[in-house]
């Protein structure tokens, strides 16, 4: 029991530390935390958040005041909704707002990516212009239709800056490991009329149809910091594995199973590193060139060792 009380005390202090300039009754906070955690068995983190939000609402203060500056993040780091962040961006494109509640909508970008933004009319923020760079301070992430965006509300601030923020390069190069191969990969069949992938000879649009064989891999390339969904076509696959449509037919002739082509491709691709050049599409990374890594990784050993040596000196080991 005493242990529980101590825990509540610690959590109470944590909540209060965010409201140092305000006069808040600690007993009230502890009571609420204890009710949520001990009575209702709400996880601690959720309880802390709930009580914090309650205080924010009660005192009618903006999150930017209590939490200070939202951290500066790059667009590629935004991964969940409900996060308060500050972004340094260039306005890439403005769209027509289709609702009276929205004053501006469009795309903003930084070197790591491009993201949709929405400025709510009631936020009464100044309008931004295409091609200019701004700091978007205290904006909040949101997901809409399964994609992440940022909303500008009344607690946000938009400040124009002289700096010219660059947008993601048109073509990028990534070296990563193929960490997953997704469904509808392998030795597939396509509809002769529309080229869509068909299953069991039935096209989703054209019904029973004439088909032709094709090879493709939908996969995920991962460099430990980001992941890229890639589609490899027959040409890519033939150059990497030696298996093209002809070879795939041979494999099927022997094994009498179309799936064995995918198994063979997996053995040669999954968990291997590739160097890919191409551009970012809406969802998929459009591959222009792909090759296996060249096996010269060891050449970087000395520079890593040198860096370790200097860090060791720095800490005095």
């Amino acid at each position: 029991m005493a242990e529980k009380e101590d825990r509540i005390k610690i959590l109470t202090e944590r909540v209060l530390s965010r409201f140092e300039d305000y006069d808040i009754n600690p007993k009230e906070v502890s009571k609420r935390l204890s009710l949520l955690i001990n009575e209702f068995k709400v996880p601690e983190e959720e309880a802390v958040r709930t009580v914090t939000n309650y205080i924010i609402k009660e005192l009618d203060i903006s999150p930017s005041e209590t939490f200070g500056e939202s951290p500066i993040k790059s667009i590629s780091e935004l991964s969940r909704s409900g996060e308060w962040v500050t972004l340094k961006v260039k306005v890439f494109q403005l769209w027509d707002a289709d609702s009276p509640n929205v004053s501006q909508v469009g795309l903003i970008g930084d070197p790591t990516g491009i993201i949709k933004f929405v400025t709510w009319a009631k936020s009464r923020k100044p309008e931004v212009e295409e091609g200019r760079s701004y700091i978007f301070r205290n904006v909040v992430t949101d997901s809409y239709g399964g994609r992440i965006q940022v909303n500008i509300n009344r607690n946000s601030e938009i400040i124009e800056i002289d700096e010219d923020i660059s947008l993601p390069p048109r073509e990028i190069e990534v070296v990563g490991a193929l960490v997953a191969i997704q469904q509808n990969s392998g030795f597939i069949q396509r509809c002769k009329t529309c080229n869509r992938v068909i299953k069991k000879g039935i096209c989703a649009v054209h019904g029973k149809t004439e088909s032709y064989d094709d090879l493709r891999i939908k996969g995920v390339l991962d460099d430990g910091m980001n992941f890229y969904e890639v589609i490899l076509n027959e040409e890519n696959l033939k150059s990497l594995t030696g298996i093209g449509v002809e070879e795939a037919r041979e494999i099927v002739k022997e094994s009498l199973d179309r799936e064995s082509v995918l198994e063979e491709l997996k053995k040669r691709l999954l968990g291997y590193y590739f160097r890919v050049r191409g551009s970012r599409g809406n969802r998929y990374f459009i591959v222009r060139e792909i090759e296996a890594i060249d096996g010269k990784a060891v050449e970087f050993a000395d520079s890593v060792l040198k860096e370790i040596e200097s860090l060791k000196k720095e800490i005095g080991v």
Partner: protein
Amino acid sequence: MDTFQRREVAKRVFAYELSKSTYTTSEGDRTPKYVLTPTGEKCNRVFMVGVLLDKEEVKPDSNFWRIRISDPTGVVTGFVGRYQPEALEALGDIQPPVILSIVAKLNIFEGETSKFLSIRPESINVTDTQTRDYWVIETAKHTVERIKRLMDGADEDTKLAKDVYMTDIGEYLSMVEKAVTVIKEEAEIFSEEGRGDDRTDDIADESAGLKETEEVKTEVGEARIESSEIEDIDLEDFEFEEEEWDLSDILEEE
């Protein structure tokens, strides 16, 4: 809070560091769980390249396998069962010792007195020394970057890692140094023998496997001194989410 469903990046962390990781964070019920490592990487998924030392069915005919994977820094234990169908299928044809690439989720068994990390492979594939070399160098670079952030103490994850583990920076720098040195020396041996790039994967696989097995033996010895608490784990403490099985032999080995 509503979660944007985004694929988790597979982080690069050496086996030694993973085996020391005991702290999990989760921002809410519907957000993914992350394991925080001693140098401050938050991982939900990892990508590893290492040597399969052994595979063993946890109970006869359970088709639930325990594997041990080693890289130049240490060993992690993994479990593969019916919830990892792709990895299970691949593992069937594989015999140790052999170099594998593994994409895995992490799991921490929590006892009352101690914790124990294991990996749950999603996919497993046999790979070559070239991939292993690349992975070691890549993981070394990522780890050094994390250590630098840890020294700056600027971001929240590394600050938390420092508080939780009281991370000894020198220990982790030495770990990376050792891994890179092993890879570099092996490459030098091969080029001295005049085989260079001509080495066939089979020969390289075999010798690398043996070499690393030796490496591991010494490592396990060191680990025993450092983390004798593992031996004290009361097995009754662990709640198994998948199936009941006996952990006693793993823990004795460590």
